[in-house]
């Protein structure tokens, strides 16, 4: 198969690479958004430590 500079194959591969790139960017955005949502809604809040002063 003769390969030209702008063969249809290149377009298809570019489309595939672009798709994967966009998916990866989307995944980064989702993890970021999820982290913000979890942090702001208090999901990762530590329970307050019991005061040692009261036990003495």
């Amino acid at each position, binding site marked *: *198969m003769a*390969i030209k*500079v702008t063969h249809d*194959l290149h377009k*298809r591969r570019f*489309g*595939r690479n672009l798709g994967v790139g966009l998916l990866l960017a989307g995944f980064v955005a989702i993890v970021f*958004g999820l982290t*913000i*949502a979890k942090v702001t809604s208090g999901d990762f809040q530590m329970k307050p430590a019991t005061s040692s002063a009261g036990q003495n």
Partner: protein
Amino acid sequence: MSDASINASTLREDEAGFGDYFALLKPRVMSLVVFTALVGLLAAPTPVHPMVGFCAILFIAIGGGASGALNMWWDADIDRVMKRTRGRPIPAGKVEAGEAMVLGLALSGFAVIMLALATNILAGAFLAFTIFFYVVIYTMWLKRATPQNIVIGGAAGAFPPVIGWIAATGDMAIEPWLMFALTFMWTPPHFWALALFMRSDYDDAGVPMLTVTHGRPATRTHILVYTALLALLAVGAAFSGLGGPVYLAVALVMNALFLRGAWRISRRDETASEADNFRAERSFFKLSLLYLFLHFGAILAEAVLKPFGLGGW
């Protein structure tokens, strides 16, 4: 000019594009999964952060898509034979069966882990079980072994609202299992109607559909019996925590229409069906899609109206 990155001997004119890999995830089935899981999530009594809810639905959809890719990998041989599935990426020669397997396995692991991290471990475990059920129990075992394949296999498609509910609450309740039962009971009449008018497809592929093993008249009777049981369940669910006036109205109308369709199918013979190119069977199949959509839509409407004091009883 030469391109060092391309080896001419391995080039294929029909090399897969991005869309071919996406098609492995069965986007149409995925849309049903997204919708029913969303209803399960929103009908749950625990409010969910929109971002967490979005992620939950996304990962459930990816898990559903992954099981679709694994199904296409395993069933590539029968997909090649059936008219309905001949255009799928593997039988069409665009994607290798092994690629579908790797994509399916990778996305399954990804979806389960991400759902567990985004919501809770129980939801992740249920998604993993659903994928296992669809791929191993249904695709690899039951589909080619028993005419009840659709009945038991229907459970896999019925899990998404349960997963959605668990993602929101982290707990079990009776309501998500009612949604499960609704989809579970709906699946056999839906697929048997398809099997009636797709005629020789399953026969050619050697899949023991009811139409092949027990004959077409028996399939017609089965459709009627399952539709009657489904109607009892669907109308009965109106008086559960999911129901309300909107749901009851939808259930009464849709089940009356569905029963009428099933009755017509049961009264017809092959000569009558062939004379009008399976008109009653085709319209019953179309109605079944609307049936499920409207039932879940009504459950969603009841849940959305509740905060305004309108939904539910």
